[in-house]
């Protein structure tokens, strides 16, 4: 299996996801610079967390218009599996590969802590190693993670099984108190219609190693490697 991690100026979780993904793959993914207009054929594209272009306009907005994104949009539309984590998720919504937007957190503060998410479906390339309904403990670290889409879009996404992860309490209940950022319907991660693109605010690469006090994030990388090798 071959994977590419895209490096935007201001990406800062590129190495972290390279390490976590590399651990599951048994070899390192390639790192692709944002100014590239094409790169070698890969089985998986990862957009890492960070502050692409400083997030000075709107999180992910400038990265969505970078040279490399034209190629990524083309490939993702042709079914190449694409994972966006945190800032990567913001890039995916800004570039139209995923529905909805990510607004400033409801309490207006940056927030970094472990939270719980419920896996809404195990029926995907990304979540096949988990059980549907399983609760994971994974950190979030963002200022703009407040997922929003209009009610009709959300209803349609629910119908299509596009909700990947929801913020929940440790027992798996997606209650308001467990929602760290005001996201609509506690949404923490969403698929595109064909479930080949996943955007998620939590950082699975930060808890993919027992030494970091948790391993719940590793399943995503293991599942991708299993499906794409």
């Amino acid at each position, binding site marked *: 299996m071959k994977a590419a991690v895209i490096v935007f*100026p*201001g990406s*800062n*979780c590129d*190495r*972290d996801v390279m*390490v*976590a993904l590399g651990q599951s793959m048994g070899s390192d993914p390639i790192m692709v610079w944002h100014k590239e207009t094409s790169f070698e054929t890969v089985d998986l594209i990862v957009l890492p*967390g*960070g*502050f692409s*272009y*400083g*997030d*000075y306009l709107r999180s992910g907005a400038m990265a969505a218009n970078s040279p490399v994104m034209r190629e990524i949009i083309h490939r993702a539309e042709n079914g190449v599996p694409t994972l966006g984590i945190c800032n990567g998720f913001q890039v995916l919504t800004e570039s139209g590969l995923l529905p909805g937007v990510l607004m400033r957190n409801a309490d207006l*503060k*940056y*927030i*970094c*802590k472990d939270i719980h998410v419920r896996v809404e479906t195990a029926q995907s390339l990304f979540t096949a190693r988990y059980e549907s309904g399983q609760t994971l403990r994974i*950190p979030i*670290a963002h*200022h703009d993670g407040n997922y929003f889409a209009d009610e009709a879009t959300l209803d349609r996404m629910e119908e299509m099984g596009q909700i990947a992860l929801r913020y929940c309490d440790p027992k798996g209940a997606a209650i308001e108190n467990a929602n760290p950022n005001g996201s609509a319907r506690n949404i923490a991660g969403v698929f595109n219609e064909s479930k080949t693109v996943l955007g998620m605010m939590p*950082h699975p*690469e*930060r808890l993919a*190693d027992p*030494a*970091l*006090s948790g391993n719940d994030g590793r399943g995503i990388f293991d599942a991708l490697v299993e499906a794409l090798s």
Partner: protein
Amino acid sequence: MSLAASGPQVTPQAVAEHGLDEDEYARILEILGREPNLLELGIFSVMWSEHCSYKSSKKWLKTLPTQAPHVICGPGENAGVIDIGEGYAAVFKMESHNHPSFIEPYQGAATGVGGILRDVFTMGARPIANLNALRFGDPAHPKTRHLVAGVVAGIGGYGNCVGVPTVGGEVNFDPAYNGNILVNAMTVGLAKADRIFYSAAAGAGYPIVYAGSKTGRDGIHGATMASAEFAEGTEEKRPTVQVGDPFTEKLLIEACLELMATDAIIGIQDMGAAGLTCSSFEMASKGGAGVELDLEKVPCREDGMTPYEMMLSESQERMLMVLQPGKQDLARRIFEKWDLDVAVVGHLTDSGRMVIKMNGEVVGDLPIDPLAEASPEYDRPHTPSPARPEIAADDVPAPEDAGDALLRLMATPDLSGKRWIWEQYDHMVMADTIGRPGGDAAVVRVHGSGRALAMTSDCTPRYCEADPRRGGAQAVAESWRNLTAVGARPLALTDNLNFGNPERPEIMGQLVGCIEGMREACEALDYPVVSGNVSLYNETEGKAILPTPVIGGVGLIDDARTRIDNALKQAGEAIVLVGETTGHLGASLYLRDVLGRRDGAPPPVDLAAERRNGEFVRVQIRDGALSACHDLADGGLAVALAEMALAGDIGATLARPAGDNPPLHAWLFGEDQARYLVTVKDGEAFCEAAHGAGVSAVVIGRTGGESLDLPGGQPISLDELRRAHEGWLPAYMERIA
């Protein structure tokens, strides 16, 4: 036209406005053999400012121990460097950004983080962790909430974007900081031990290259501002505060590290305080070279900037380097790849002078060595702080209920949980933070190795106020203890000495006393100082802050898997108190926050006991004998146990051992030093081993249950304790003013 005649005339008023006294101006005349022009005056002013020259503290700083076999580079460079084995080095320093943070908290704190990051990556290290020691005024003061909010947002805004985890620090509140908060930022970086970069540069004709952000009119005279007291109207100085751009800093880190992987760099220096002036002087002076600068080549943010403005601008995110001849294109390619400005702005000479040109015309011409060497050094008069009487525990009233007193302490501004703050900092980016904020010391893995670094910042200003010497020693000892408590071997420290106006003998006495105590502790614990920063004139309208010598400690854990934290792990374990307990209540939090008294001498620091007890505990941790360990400090035994219970969500029952004990409230809340609380399976066996090593240890309770049962008080449920501990800060910050 003579140089002195170019530009506006230097008047006595201009000299005074540049913070130079008559003696200093006379020395300038002697060095130049003529009157300086305004540009030259400005350069003398910043180079001789307290901030850049350490003129009041140098004499005393020299007494601190700076050597050890593992020290690669001690004070004098951008940051200290220590060998941590396996070919790696840790590079670290702490620096204050107190004055700017009071004037403009967000940008002041943000640029403080940016500046200290640059000090570390300038030396070839990738920054891997940030810490922050913060001191604010009385929570009831009308400005405090705004300052806390701004400083925390600024630290987060910068560190989060740059992608370096903010893993630890400390926060105190005291009315003494009402007009003068302290923002001390520390960065720890990781480098290859044989790839350290220094500022010294020599080689006539070698190109001087500028890289990073453009130069603007911001921050002019920041170093001079940081060397003066505050008075009414300080807010008018807001334009002297720099504005940070963490995105550019991130690019600058990556670009510099990429260039450092080649052999292009001779010397490199970030442009911090006094910007282009200080950085070029530093490089040339250390390398024994001369400098010629062509200012028209400096990338500028706006048109029409004068040489004075360019030389003194403190615009952020800029680096100056001397390259091997012929490497300019390589450097240009790397900086342009990262979309950063880059320009050759001059070259080294062998003239020993700094010649500043603008469009070919000489606008400044200064001798380098005389300026650096003649920088003033003062032996300022100092009077020792009056000794305070020791307070006998029997003379301190006991609380009606020990549990109530504990609840009260846990909810005070100083002891309350700081989660509201550190959850706004990305403390996990880089995926190597194995010991997160909230513990005794943060622990970060050495990426790609089995080792880990522990780091902490410590100071107890109320002890330093009561007895500077004890307070200085205690700050070092507590730092050493906090590293030990996670299983690390303390290797070296950086210090950030924050004091009032050194021209007042009683303030100078605090500085001298604290340094004396630090020296004793550093020597006794083999814990050298490798870098540091001094911030003086922390006064507003004649009122000084508490003496605050902050210690930033770094330790090494050889096998990261052996590190432990302070959370209780399971029910049924023995709780053991290591170290002697006399029940010292002078200058304690119990005295201050429960009884409203600020008197008494602080606890003595027995450095031999510190060392003996700490070394015993560290070996026990390494051998896997302990399940949890916590250093005893503010609030004493009861507070430490409460913190351990909350961290592990497991209760505990405490019982006083039979025998000679101080009064119960002194036993619970006394702040004797050199102590740890640990949990073990077999308490008796552990105590026997301790006694064999000459270490005092006694079983004082068992873990388990959902409450904390103290002798002399009603049980406190963990829920109630947590509400008290976690409740204060969010409630304070989110109250509608």
